[in-house]
Structure formats: structure tokens, C-alpha cells
């Protein structure tokens, strides 16, 4: 049980439970980055606007919007879904989805298109809970054949099929 009950503490407690509080916070953060970095690009005058004018103005608008969004968190009653993470976080699935393109970058840069497609699809496919090793391998092989045919032969994307650029 919390010991003291000052209205300010209640207010803050009410606020930090709300998703909108964090949503507003993120927007304020973006706004601050722009508003603080903007003037560094030279503001200029209204008649001759410098490159920093619009970013600074937008940054200030964004900060105001962020405050308003966080503020509305106070006025509305708590909704059903106030968690930032979904009920069942899919850390492994998310990691697989993000690792897919990273594999594509890595293998595409050093070993060519075929390994890039294969690893990208294979790694991504592992993220599904029902996927088996066999199904992922088959899918990756199928997409590789299809992808090479479509992008390398038909659409002529300039990327070597197989290469060795060393590490």
C-alpha cells in the first residue's frame, strides 16, 4: 500500500499508467530533437527563411502536440489496453523478423543474392511458433528459386548470384 496520498502523487500515478503518457513523451522527444537542432542550421528571417526555420517551427508544434497527447491521458478513463507491450510479447518472433533483413544485408553484401534470400527467408520463418525446421527450409528454398528467377533473370536486379568478398 502506498503510504501517502497527496494529490500530486495521485496525478502522477494516474498519468504513468496511461499509454498516452508515453505516446506524448515520444512525440515531445522528437519535437525537442528538432527544435534544439533546427536553429543550428540557421533560422533566417521570415522573408528569407533559412534551412533551420521549418524544422524549428515543426519541432515546437510537435512539442505542443506531445504535451496535449500526454494531457489527454489524464482526462480519459483507463482503457482496456494500456500496456505498451502486447499481452503475449513475441520477442523471438520480432527478433526473427528484424534479423531477416539484417541477414539479407550481410549475406547480400558478402556472398551474393542466393545466400541472401535463403537466410533472410529462413531466419524470418523461424519466428512463427508453428514453423518446423523442415517447413522453414522448404519455404526458404522455394522463395530462393522464385526470387532468383524473378529478380535476377526477369527484372535484372544488379546483384551477383554467388560471390565471395571475404570478411
Amino acid at each position, binding site marked *: 500500500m502506498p503510504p501517502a496520498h497527496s494529490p500530486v502523487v495521485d496525478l502522477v500515478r494516474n498519468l504513468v499508467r496511461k499509454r498516452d503518457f508515453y505516446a506524448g513523451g515520444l512525440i515531445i522527444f522528437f519535437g525537442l530533437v528538432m527544435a534544439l537542432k533546427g536553429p543550428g*542550421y540557421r533560422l533566417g528571417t521570415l522573408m528569407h527563411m533559412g534551412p533551420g526555420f521549418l524544422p524549428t517551427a515543426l519541432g515546437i508544434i510537435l512539442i505542443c502536440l506531445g504535451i496535449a497527447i500526454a494531457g489527454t491521458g489524464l482526462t480519459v478513463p483507463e482503457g482496456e489496453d494500456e500496456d505498451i507491450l502486447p499481452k503475449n510479447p*513475441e520477442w523471438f518472433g520480432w527478433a526473427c523478423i*528484424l534479423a531477416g533483413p539484417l541477414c539479407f*544485408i550481410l549475406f547480400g553484401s558478402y556472398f551474393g543474392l542466393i545466400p541472401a534470400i535463403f537466410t*533472410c527467408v529462413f531466419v524470418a*520463418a523461424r519466428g512463427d511458433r508453428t514453423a518446423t525446421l523442415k517447413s522453414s527450409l522448404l*519455404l526458404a528454398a522455394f522463395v530462393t528459386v522464385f526470387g532468383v528467377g524473378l529478380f535476377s533473370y526477369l527484372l535484372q*536486379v544488379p*546483384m551477383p548470384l554467388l560471390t565471395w568478398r571475404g570478411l
Partner: protein
Amino acid sequence: MIETALTDLWYGFGVALQPHNLMWCFIGVLVGNMVGVLPGMGPLATISILLPLTFGIKPVGAILMLAGVMYGAQYGGAICSILLNLPCHPPHAVTCLDGFPMTKQGRGGVALGLTVMASFVGASWGITEMIFLSPILVRVALEFGPAEICSLMLLGLLAGSTLARGSPLKGVAMTVLGLMLGIVGTDLETGAERFTFGMTHLDDGIELVGLALGLFGIAEFMNSINQVVSINAKYTNVRLRDMRPSKSDLKQAIAPMFRGTLVGSLCALIPGTGPTIASFVAYATEKKISKHPEKFGTGLIEGVIAPEASTHSSVQGDFIPTMSLGIPGDAVMALLLGALMIQGIVPGPQLIKEHPDIFWGLVASFWIGNIMLVLLNVPLIGIWVKLLTIPYKYLYPSALFFVCIGVYAANNDMFQVGETVVIGILGYVLLRLGFHPAPILLGFVLGPRFEENFRRAMLISRGDILVFVERPISAVFIGLCVLLIVLQIYVRIRGTKPPIEIPTVLEGAE
């Protein structure tokens, strides 16, 4: 006026019927139709994946194909809603309410058949509207100076972000974030590098394809992985002859079809109200004027036909401000406009005059494409229905590869694939925080032009910010902006609820 419009249209058919243009249009509607059926893949992601592949073809072919994807997906989305009760694409969410009960009664085929008809009628009306309204709008818009263009863009951005789904405040925040992302890179006027954080790869700005695929590809996959509801394929056994409606069905369908079309075309005229809102308004209207409103939700033909006709007429109508003013109403339109800009075509009122082949070719291709879709949907319904049962676990890894190669092919640059991953993470965080990232694209596409025109307006007025309210046309736009904001605040204070409950929609497939 009618005569010139018909001559121009004739010319447009000449452009659209050239064999290669016809081929691109066909590929577009076919892919769009297919993707529209696949649960969990939206037209936005598809258009972004296809976008880099269009760099090599001529602008006309490119835009015909990308637009084809968009309205093709509209046809496919209805199948998903009616047979599976899955509102894969928001504009069809409302179709589920009466479409799926019809399927359960064994009348799914009839619902689909009538939907194809209603879609064609709705789209045809939208196209007609485009033919006659666009030249008028252009004539007005050609008089606009930078101040007017600026205010108009402001209105477009505001309407696009506040009238879309979710909280209007958050929508506006997303638009401003989009404007900010559009600023990244070298400033065209002064050569200053802004927000590149020392990375030379960012000098040319953030790539449109990367942004779209990060937000609507990677973020969506993260959102849907292991979440997709098991698909109930019990009712997907639809044969061709099931689709033929009986005479009484037809009689029942005709009036709602035209009412829906009318509602859709009215919605298209209000900037920012896209097909989703049009479909909801059409459904609510039908319910209101019906003699037996309590029967809605039990499988009434009116409840399927009116929203579908309305969606299609509004989709075609959305092209009017996009093509004639260069102001897109939603994210898909922003993407199409971005595609034109990549091809080196400046959007705006001068587009119809400078590139009549694009505008009139597009208009004509809408008709050709819609006829193709009707012809495609009838015999291919069996294949589409089979597609519905493709599990997500095969879909998303393949789509992820398409995302990677699509972004890479845009500039043959691996850095941009990484950029897309980062944007994807940001997009997912935004989704979880209750933002809808679609308006980001709107701000991103309009951002640079907004800045340019704002600068010009300020230069001409010698730094007098009041110019926006002193010039009459600009003042009207600003007035409308204010009205929009006041209306939003009023609605918020009153706490008015939408007239019908919105069924849960799979995120982001807008």
C-alpha cells in the same frame, strides 16, 4: 465542355489500350486482386514493393500498374470479408456485418456476385466524376499562388490526419513527424544538410520506398506475427454458378447500389474522408432509411451492396484532388504521387496539361481495369478462395524478402535496407503507442513542396505571415482548417460516438 471531355477520354483510351500499357494495367489489377485477398497484406505494402520495379518502365505504364494494384485490392478485400469474416482491409470491415451472415446462410456466392456488380457501378460513377470535375478544379487551381497552395496543403494535411482513424491529435502528430522525415537530407534551396547526423547515405533524404515498407511492411509483420486468427475456411467453397443473383436479389440490390455510389462520391469530395469512412457512412445511411433496421447484421443484401459501391466510388473519387491539385487524401494516394515524383513528374494543377497521357490514360485505364477485374473475379473466384487459406507463416517470410529486395532495388544500396529496419522498429513502437502511421506518408510526400511554397509565399509577401488570411482564396482554406479543428474539439467535448460499432480491424492494411 462535355465534348472536350469526351475527346480527351477518347485520347486516353488510345493511350491505355497500347499493348504495353494494357499489360501493365493487367499485371497491376491481377497482383492487386491477389494481394487484396491475402489476409494480412495491404495495398500500401504491395504498391511500395512494386514501386522500385517501376523505375525502369515509362511513367504512364508505372502509374497505370500501381493504380491498378490499388483498386484491384479493393475487389479482393471484399472476398476476404464476406467469406471469412476477416476485415483484412479497413474499407471492407463493414461488409463483414452482413456479408458473413449471408455466407453462413449459403448465399456467399450471391453476395460476391452482387459485390462485383456494385463495385463496377460505384467505380464507373467515380471515374465519370473524375473526368468532369478534374478539369474544373485545374482551371481554378492554375490561378493559385504559393500562398494559396500552402493553405490548400495545410487543409489537405489536416483533413487527412484528423479524419482518419484514431485520435485526431495523434494523427496530426504523425503528419508533423512525416513532414520532419521529409526534411531529412540536403535542403534544395540552400544546400544545407539537415538531420543527416553525419551519414552521407542520408544526403538524398529518406527513401520513400524504405519509409513505406518499414511502416507498412516490417512494422505490420511484427504486429501480426503469431497473432493471426485461425482461418475458418468452412464456407470458402464457392462455385461460379453460386454467384449468379436471382431476379429478386437484383431488384433488392439496385437502389442501395446507387445510394451507396452517391454517398461514396460525396465522401470523395471532402478531403481526408477516404473509402473507409465512405463505407461506414453508406452502411449507416442504409440502416437509417430502411423499414426494418433491426434486420441489419443478419445477412441483408443492402448491408453488403451499399458499402461496397460506396468504397469503390470514393476510391476513384480520391484520385481527383491527387491528380488535379497534387494533394493526396490518404497514404495510398501519397504513395502514388510519390511514384510520379520519382519518375520526375511534378504533381500539381499543371499535370493534366503537361502530361495528358498520364492523366487521361489513367482515367481510361480505370475503366479497362475495372472491366478486367469483373472478368477476372468471376472465373478466378475459386483460385482466390484457395489463396485465402495460405497460412501467415508462409506469407510473411516471403513478403519480408520482397521488402528487402524492393528497397535494395530502389537505389542498389544496402544501407537503405538497414534504414527500413530502423523505420520498421519505430513504426511498431508507434503502433503500440496507439498511433496510426499512415499520415506519416502524407506529410513525407507533401513536406518538401510545402516548405518550398511556404518560402516562396513569404518571399513574395516580404515576410508578412498575414498573407495567408489576406488573400481571399487562401483565407477560405485557412477558414476551413479552423472549422475542422473546432469541429474536432466540439465532437470531443460532446463525446459523440460513431453511429455504428466498428468491428476489429487487422491493423494497418489501409
